[in-house]
C-alpha cells in the first residue's frame, strides 16, 4: 500500500477541512471555554458530523456507518487537530467503535454500532488509574459475583467520561497489578448504581472524568471480549486511540507551524520581517522536517491498523512517540517565535500548546512509547 492518501481519502480531507474551518474553528473552542459549557463541545455540531458520516467513520455499512477505515478516521482526526475541534470523536467514534467492531459480540455490535454511527449515544474508555498511562498497572477489581461481576475501583483521565452514556472499563478479574493477564473489559451504563462521575476540566478546555466504581454489578452480557484475556483486546483499542491522537497532534502541529511561518513573514523587527533571520529560518526548516516525519509515521500507523490490525502495536507506538514530541516542539517554537503575543490568551497559539500537552499524555507519552518500542525490539 503506497504511503499516500487515495483519491477518496483526499476528498474526505478536503471536505472535512472546509467544514471544520467554517463550523468549528478555534474560536468555537474558545467560546465553549469562556461560556464554561458543561459538555465542552457542541451537541449540534456532533449531530451534523454524524449526518456527514463522521461519527460512524469506522462503522461498517451494515451497521449504518461510512466504513472508511482507520486512514479515514485519521484524516478526520488530523483536520480536527488543525482547528482544535472539540467533539466526542476520539472516545466514541474511534475507541468505542473499534472496541465493538473488533471484540464485540454480534448482539453488542447490533446494539451499539448503529448508535455510534447515528450520533445517538456517547461512549468513553476508562483505563488509567494513575497519573501515568500503563494498562498493565490496572488494579480495579472485577470480583466474581454469582453469574456476574462486581466492579470496584477508581479511573482517571477518562476522555469524555463526563458525557458518556456508556463506559467501557478495564478491570482486573484475575491476577494483580503489573500483570498483563487477568484483565477483562466491561460495558457499563454511566447511570448504573455505584458509578459516580466527576467531570474534570482539563487544561485544553476539553473535559475528562474521574470515575469511581463502587460495587457496580455487571453480567456476563456486559463483558466485551474474553474474561481474563482483555489485555490484548485493550491494546488493540488503545492502538487505534494512539493513532487517532497522533493524527490529531499531526494536524495541530501543522497548523501551529503554519501560523508561525505566516507570522515570520509578517512580523517586522529591526526593520525587516523576522523571517529573514537565519537562526529562525533554520529552526523553522528543522521543524518542517520533523513534521514531515510525523506525517509519515502517522499515515503508516493508520494504514497498518487497516491492514494488519493485530500487528499495529509497534507502528502505533512510533506514531504516538514521534507525533507527541514533535507537536510539543511545534507548539513551543510557535509561542517563542510569536514572542509576547504568543503568550496572550487572545491569540490562538496557546490553545495548541495546551491541547498538544493533553493529547501527548493520553495513552502514553513519548517516553512510554519509546520505551515500549525498545522492549518490543528486545533491548
Amino acid at each position, binding site marked *: 500500500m503506497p504511503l499516500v492518501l487515495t483519491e477518496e481519502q483526499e476528498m474526505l480531507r478536503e471536505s472535512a477541512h472546509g467544514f471544520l474551518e467554517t463550523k468549528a474553528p478555534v474560536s468555537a473552542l474558545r467560546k465553549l471555554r469562556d461560556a464554561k459549557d458543561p459538555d465542552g463541545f457542541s451537541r449540534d455540531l456532533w449531530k451534523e458530523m454524524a449526518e456527514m458520516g463522521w461519527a460512524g467513520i469506522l462503522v461498517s455499512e451494515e451497521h449504518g456507518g461510512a466504513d472508511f477505515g482507520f486512514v479515514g478516521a485519521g484524516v478526520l482526526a488530523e483536520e480536527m487537530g488543525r482547528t482544535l475541534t472539540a467533539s466526542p470523536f476520539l472516545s466514541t467514534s474511534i475507541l468505542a467503535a473499534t472496541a465493538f467492531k473488533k471484540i464485540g459480540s454480534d448482539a453488542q455490535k447490533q446494539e451499539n454500532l448503529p448508535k455510534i454511527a447515528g450520533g445517538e449515544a456517547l461512549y468513553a474508555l476508562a483505563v488509567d488509574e494513575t497519573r501515568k498511562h500503563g494498562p498493565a498497572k490496572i488494579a480495579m477489581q472485577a470480583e466474581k459475583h454469582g453469574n456476574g461481576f462486581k466492579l470496584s475501583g477508581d479511573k482517571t483521565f477518562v476522555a469524555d467520561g463526563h458525557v458518556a452514556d456508556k463506559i467501557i472499563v478495564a478491570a482486573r478479574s484475575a491476577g494483580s497489578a503489573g500483570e498483563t493477564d487477568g484483565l477483562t473489559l466491561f460495558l457499563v451504563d454511566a447511570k448504573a448504581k455505584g458509578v459516580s462521575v466527576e467531570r474534570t476540566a482539563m487544561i485544553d478546555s476539553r473535559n475528562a472524568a474521574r470515575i469511581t466504581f463502587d460495587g457496580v454489578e455487571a453480567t456476563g452480557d456486559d463483558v466485551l471480549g474474553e474474561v481474563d484475556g482483555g489485555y490484548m483486546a485493550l491494546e488493540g483499542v488503545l492502538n487505534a486511540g494512539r493513532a487517532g491522537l497522533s493524527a490529531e497532534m499531526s494536524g495541530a502541529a501543522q497548523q501551529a507551524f503554519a501560523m508561525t511561518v505566516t507570522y515570520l513573514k509578517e512580523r517586522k523587527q529591526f526593520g525587516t520581517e523576522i523571517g529573514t533571520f537565519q537562526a529562525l529560518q533554520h529552526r523553522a526548516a528543522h521543524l518542517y522536517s520533523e513534521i514531515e516525519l510525523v506525517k509519515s509515521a502517522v499515515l503508516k500507523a493508520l494504514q497498518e491498523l487497516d491492514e494488519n490490525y493485530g500487528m499495529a502495536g509497534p507502528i502505533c507506538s512510533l506514531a504516538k512517540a514521534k507525533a507527541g514530541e514533535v507537536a510539543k516542539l511545534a507548539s513551543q517554537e510557535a509561542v517563542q517565535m510569536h514572542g509576547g503575543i504568543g503568550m496572550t490568551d487572545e491569540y490562538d497559539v*496557546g490553545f495548541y500548546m495546551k491541547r498538544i500537552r493533553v493529547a501527548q499524555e493520553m495513552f502514553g507519552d513519548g517516553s512510554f512509547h519509546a520505551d515500549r518500542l525498545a522492549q518490543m525490539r528486545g533491548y
Partner: protein
Amino acid sequence: MSDLETFRAEARQWLEENCPEEMRDGAAGEENVCWGGKQWKFQSDAQKLWLDRMAEKGWTVPAWPKEYGGGGLSKEEVKVLKAEMRDLKCRSPLESFGIWMLGPALLKYGTHEQKAHFLPPIARGEIRWCQGYSEPNAGSDLASLQCKCEDKGDHWLINGQKIWTSYADKSDWIFVLVRTDPKATKHNGISFILIDMDQKGVTTKPIKLISGNSPFCETFFDDATAPKEYAPGVSAIVGEINRGWDVAKYLLTHEREMISGGAGSVGNAMSSRGMGQVAADEVGREEGGRLADPLLRGKIAQAEVDGWAFLLTLERMKDEAKAGQGVGANSSMLKYYGTEYNKRRFEILMDMGGSDELEWEGERTKDGKRARNWLRTKANSIEGGTSEVQLNIIAKRILELPGA
C-alpha cells in the same frame, strides 16, 4: 567587635523589637507581598505597621541615601540586614518597580531635585510605579518604539500605546520611554519621562495570558500630559532629552541581571529534593529503587546535570565579579541558559505529573497550579529580552562575531 558586627547586633535587636509577629512567617508567596501605592489595601494592621516602621528607618530601601528616604547603608551592611531578616523570617516590608527599576535609574541619571521629589514616596510605599517600555510593534526591537511625546511649551503631550506594563491597573505613576524627536535616528530621539496616571488621557486594560490571568496590562496614552516640571527643578524627563535610550539600556541590563541572578528557581530545582525524587514520589519506583519510567529518568538525570552546572556557574560568575574578573555580557548568557533551563524543567515536571497535573480547575491541582506555572515559564525566554536577543548579544559582545 568590628563595626559590621556591631551593626549586626543592633539590626537584629531592632528587628526583633519592631517586626510584628505576623510578619515573621517568612511567607514568600506572591500573595503576601506588600506593593504599596494609593490603591493599596493592607492585608493586616501588622503589614502597615511593619512598612511604616521599616520606612521610617529607611530600610525599605536600605542602600539608598538617607536624604532620599533610604537607610544609607553600605553594601556589607545591607547584606547583614538581609541575612538577619532571613534568619528571623521577616517578610520584605515593601516591593515595587519603583524600588527595583525607577529608583536605580533616578539615582544614576536623576538630578538632586528629582531624587528628592520622587524617591521618598517610593521608599515609604506611597506611590506605586509601573514601567512603560514595550509597544505592540516594538518587541525585541525596543528602540523602534513610536509612542509620541510633543513639546507643548509648558508641558509634554503624549500619544501612543504601551504593552506588558505590569500592574499598570494598580499603579499611580508610570515611567515611560517616548519618542521626543521623530526625525532622529532610531536610538536617538527617545526620552525617559515620568507620568502621573491619574488623568483622563491614561487608561489601562489587563492582558490575559495563556496561563490565566496576569499582572500585565496595555496602557493607552490619548493626549496625556506631563508638565515640563513637577516642581522647581523637578523635570518630568530623567536624563537628557532625546538621550533616554541610555537610561533604558542601563535598566535593561539591570533587569537582565535581576532575572539571571534570580534564577533561584533553578536553585530550588537542585535543592535537597530534586526533580528525580519528586518524580519517584509521583510516578513510583521499580524494584531496585529506580524511577519506574526509565526514559523519563534519563531526561531528569541529564537535566539535573545541566541544572547543577548552571547553578555553579551562577556562583562562579558572582565570585568572579567579586574578584573583579568576569565579562559583563555574561548576564545575557545566564539569562538565556537559566530561562531555557527553567522551561525544560517545567516540561519535565509536567511529564512526571502526567494526567494528574492536566486538570485546570479544582482543589486537587489548586486550579492547575503546576500547569499554569508551566505555561508561565514560556514567557521567561521572551520577557526581559528574548533568548534570541541574548544569543545575539553573546555573539556580538563576547564572541565578537562580525555583523552580530
